[in-house]
């Protein structure tokens, strides 16, 4: 069972599940099972006092040590440490709809991951909201911690399609302007845009007191460049084309990608932004773990 649950961390397995809520649930449970911890306890909720057991309480909360001493049922009383408001900021531009040979597009991957995080946060009673953007914010859901909020978010994500060109910096600037309270902002994007402008807005978010986790999602082909021979590359957003020898370009491309990522890594580190490198062949646990580590 354990093994089968962890299978849900793999993008190719998750793709076979039709409903997004189930996808999120399976991802989170598979992830938590791997950590040997309950998804509902131990991280965002801490023990405060004991009280008498009443009907409706979860029998799992019964403190059996007290029962042994007093022969009465007491349950542990938990309370949230803090309430962290989280925003899932998902890039829905056309470039995110790209995949070369994987089961999930970058957008699918981002949706699954953000759905899983939403599921996790709701179950930790953290309010979570959703922002989607291309050249600007296209959808916005206000953060709430109610269980119904998960349905709202997942429904929105499920109906989302990657279209239009992208302007990440503008979208993030708009986000910074929208948010009044310090929040945890989780950005899902391939980050193909003006790097300087993007950093400016990221710094702006940080200056506004937000915590930022930047999920840099690439397609597996964008990470490995598996092409051969004479190839005409076409940008799906701009329609621009470049012709070249893929074998000859591979080394240069990988070098350029490393520099690109290194730049983000270095500057995010300077700005105390969590930068998570992902591609569509990597299991989802990497992204979730990053979140939970940050949440602690």
């Amino acid at each position, binding site marked *: 069972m354990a093994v089968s649950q962890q299978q849900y961390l793999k993008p190719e397995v998750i793709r076979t599940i039709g409903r997004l809520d189930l996808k999120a649930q399976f991802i989170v449970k598979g992830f938590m099972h791997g950590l040997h911890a309950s998804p509902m306890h131990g991280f965002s909720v801490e023990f405060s006092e004991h009280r008498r057991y009443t009907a409706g309480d979860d029998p799992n909360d019964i403190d059996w040590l007290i029962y042994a001493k007093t022969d009465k049922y007491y349950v542990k009383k938990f309370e949230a440490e803090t309430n962290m408001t989280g925003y899932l900021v998902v890039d829905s531009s056309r470039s995110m709809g790209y995949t070369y040979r994987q089961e999930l597009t970058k957008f699918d991957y981002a949706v699954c991951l953000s759905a899983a995080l939403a599921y996790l946060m709701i179950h930790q009673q953290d309010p979570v909201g959703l922002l989607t953007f291309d050249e600007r914010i296209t959808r916005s859901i206000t953060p709430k911690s109610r269980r119904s909020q998960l349905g709202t978010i997942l429904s929105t994500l499920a109906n989302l399609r990657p279209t239009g060109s992208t302007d990440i910096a503008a979208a993030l600037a708009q986000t910074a302007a929208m948010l009044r309270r310090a929040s945890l902002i989780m950005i899902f994007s391939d980050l193909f845009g003006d790097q300087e402008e993007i950093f400016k807005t990221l710094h702006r978010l940080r200056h506004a007191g937000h915590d930022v986790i930047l999920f840099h999602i690439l397609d597996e082909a964008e990470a490995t460049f598996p092409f051969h021979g004479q190839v*005409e590359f076409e940008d799906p957003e701009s329609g621009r084309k470049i012709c070249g020898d893929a074998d000859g370009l591979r080394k240069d491309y990988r070098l350029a990608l490393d520099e690109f990522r290194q730049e983000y890594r270095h500057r995010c580190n300077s700005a105390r932004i969590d930068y998570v490198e992902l591609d569509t062949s990597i299991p989802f646990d990497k992204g979730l773990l990053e979140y939970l580590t940050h949440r602690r």
Partner: protein
Amino acid sequence: MTFLTFSFFLASIAAVSVPILLHLLMRGKPKKILFPALELIRKWQKSNRRRFAIKHFLLLFVRCAVLLLFGLALARPAFRSKNTESSAFFGRTGSAPTAAVLLFDTSVRMGYASEGQTRLDAAKAFAEQIVARLPSGSQAAVLDSRPAHDAFQVDLLAAAERVRRLEISPSGRPVADSVAAALRLLETSERTRRELFIFSDITAAGWPQSSEAIVHRAAVSAERARRSDQEPIQTFLIDLSVPEYQNTGVVSMEITDDGTGSDGSLRLDLELSHIGSPREGIIELFLLDTNAAPNDSSEAPKEISASAKKIAVEPFSFPDTAGFERRCVTMRLSASEIGFVQGFVRMTPGGSLAADDVRWFAFDRRPKARILLVAPEPAEEKTLFVREALAPEEFRKTGRTPFEVETLSQEKYLTLSETDLAAYQAIFFLDPAPLSESGWKKTADFVSAGGGAGFFLGRAATPPEGFENSDARALLGGRPISQIRSPDGDRPLVSANDEHSVLANFHTWLAAGKIPWNEIPVFRSWKMERLDSANEPILQFADGSEALYARRLGRGVSLVSTTPFSDASGSGTAWNLLPAGEHAWVFLMLVDGVAHALTTGGGEVLNYAPDETVTLRPRIKIFPDSVILTLPDGQKVPLAADAAERTVRFSAADKIGPYRVESEPNEEGESVASGFCVNIRPSDLELIPVVSERLEKIQNELSFKTIERVEEIESGRSAGGGLEIFPLAVLLCALFLAAETVLANRFYD
């Protein structure tokens, strides 16, 4: 640069077009792929395009080079370099395929044995080493003294086998005469290096004085090599001479029926030759039993003693001589051996040169022929020259003449009966007047019955109409129609057929061009009206008109001379100066030849040199269509006989020894029982080294290097004598192939 198989190189050049075509055709449209991270590759686009072009060009170049080098290797290229050092950089010099002609002197002199080995055996051993050392892809030709179709052997193995099978050849030309042919053959080769190896004992007989052909051919070869930018042909002379010859042999023999013997015996004059340490021995004279079947007598004359009868023995001795010493020995064959005889003389013990230990002879001794000389009165005066030529008075007194000659006036001749005429073998009509009808008929019948008649027309042959008789025409083959005058005597005689038996005495002089025809003026002759083409020209005038010719009539022969043999020079009106001029010896030999031709039915020579055309005229009434020729080795060969000309001819007598000619008995019980012998030419037996001046001259003409050991060939070659780059081409091909694999894997990983 030269190629062993240039076609392979051409094919590789054609094959190079394949990768080029593929390169052009496979340039098709690139694959279209959506790729959002375009920004990351945009800045590399230019350099990538440049590198792509360079790498494809590099790969194309490597692939073309592989094909080209592969074809180049198969074509077996070789190039010449005059720079030894640069040649050595690539490998061993002289490794290029070579065209080699191995020219052997296979004359009988090469049979000289020294240290248990003949000169030819030594040459073969040397040549086998040369052939074994020829680089792969070389071609070789093996030539000997015999004229033959000169061509390169199929391969080196065939050449080595040909060397092993070389034999002494008693016939053939001097080795020097084959040099031009060898050079000509080498000129046809396209090998980088062309070499001529001459194996010779360097004797004077092998290198005669006249060598214009060699000089001319050497010059042509050098010029052609220069024009075609080829290496000049290199010539090596392998010296097989012996420092000090030791030999004694019988170099020549003459057999004559001179009538000087009291018992009517034949006389054999032998010429012995000696060089070296003192020698004593005996000469044995053997007669073959002509009824016994011949054995392989030319190869081992000692073993035929059983079928041969020893007739005489003559001792000989020679003192120690530094140079050659010659001595004549006379032996006699008694009268009891009258008729056709074959035999040999043998020197015992034999010398170092086996070829001159034995000498063969054949002789057909017949009773003295009776010749009737007929002339108008005064007959004695008009027949003087011919009579003295046939039977000199001094000899007549002692009975030593080969012919019995009688003189008769033309008037008395007409009174002779046919029975009287039958006692003669030949009639000479010297300056005859036209005969009567009965006279012509009688003469024609005489000839038809096997006699010989000679007509030496002169001033008495008038009127020409007197020759219109049918018998006259049959005898003369035409009739005189007019006289041709040349007061300055500028119509010299020339030979029209060197092989005719009438000119048999002239063979040696004819071959050397030493008959002084120009100095024997003929002022007047008859122009003959030709009746048919049966006349056999013997001599003609410089203007082409007939001077002396023969024709067959029945079983006999008639000869016609259009100028007389009887004119005295003192008269002032002589038709020619044949009998009385400065060169009267020509007249004597000519008369002798005519007499033999008329008395023997055309003349017969029974002793020949190798490759001379043998002509036999067996005396038999009903001539056979074919005869059986038994060669010296016992092999029997059917031979067609010319019944019309009553001759048997054989032109391939290249074996030394006795030949027998026989036929089945005809209706009258007669059969041919004749033969002949073939001996080595005396000049071919002379072990006289070429004089140093002559050798220097030959060396200048041919620019050869004299070598004694095979190792000297390498050092004797001129620098850069050809270098094969096959190994280099293969190495480069392998390197380029490896480079192609590495590059292709690297580019298309």
